[in-house]
């Protein structure tokens, strides 16, 4: 494993630890933002057109 990849993985683990340590209320606020983002992506006309093609 290269140093670069090791750093990427360590940074990812650190971010997950930081998020894990947040309070439930704070995590739920982030989760709501994720949900709104997912809904916006799902409703995007470009994505729906791609869906029809598939």
């Amino acid at each position: 494993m290269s140093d670069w990849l090791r750093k990427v993985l360590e940074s990812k683990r650190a971010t997950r630890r930081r998020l894990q340590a947040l309070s439930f209320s704070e995590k739920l606020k982030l989760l709501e933002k994720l949900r709104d983002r997912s809904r916006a992506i799902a409703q995007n006309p470009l994505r729906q057109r791609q869906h029809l093609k598939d």
Partner: protein
Amino acid sequence: MKATLEVINQMQRDEVIGKYAIGGAVGATFYLEPLATLDLDIFVGLRAPRGNTLLTLAPIYDYLTSRGYQVEKEYLIIEGWPVQFLPPRDTLEEEALGQAVETEVEGVHTWVITAEHLVAIALKTGRAKDFARILYFVEGGILDASQLDQILKRHGLLEKWEQFGVKFLRGTR
């Protein structure tokens, strides 16, 4: 979410539901980093209507729709969140509901299924997203191994857990 939980707590005070606990991805978020999801799974103890021994979700639907909440497929939309009410299907889910931990969201009391029960339920359900969630729990190092072992033993899931380990955990433990 706070408003959604306030409505569910009111349902409990109005004796429409018994004990409840958050499961699924939102329940897992209590222990892990936020996991993207579009719905809220609520494990719920049902109360039989007076003079009736049959337990159904009808009182929940009646209560909420009479207050203007909409039904969409298997969900009731409560304050913006699609909520699925899940009565325990087996002894594992009954135990999970009984042992749920109390917490609060922005000052609102609520209950969440324990991490070990969430893992056991995910293992039993066995979809790809359930297995992915179990891996998050394992990698997060937050499971009480002896607690999980006892639950898996009690509910006949040890063999499934071993298969899961062979398939997904080789080299990570």
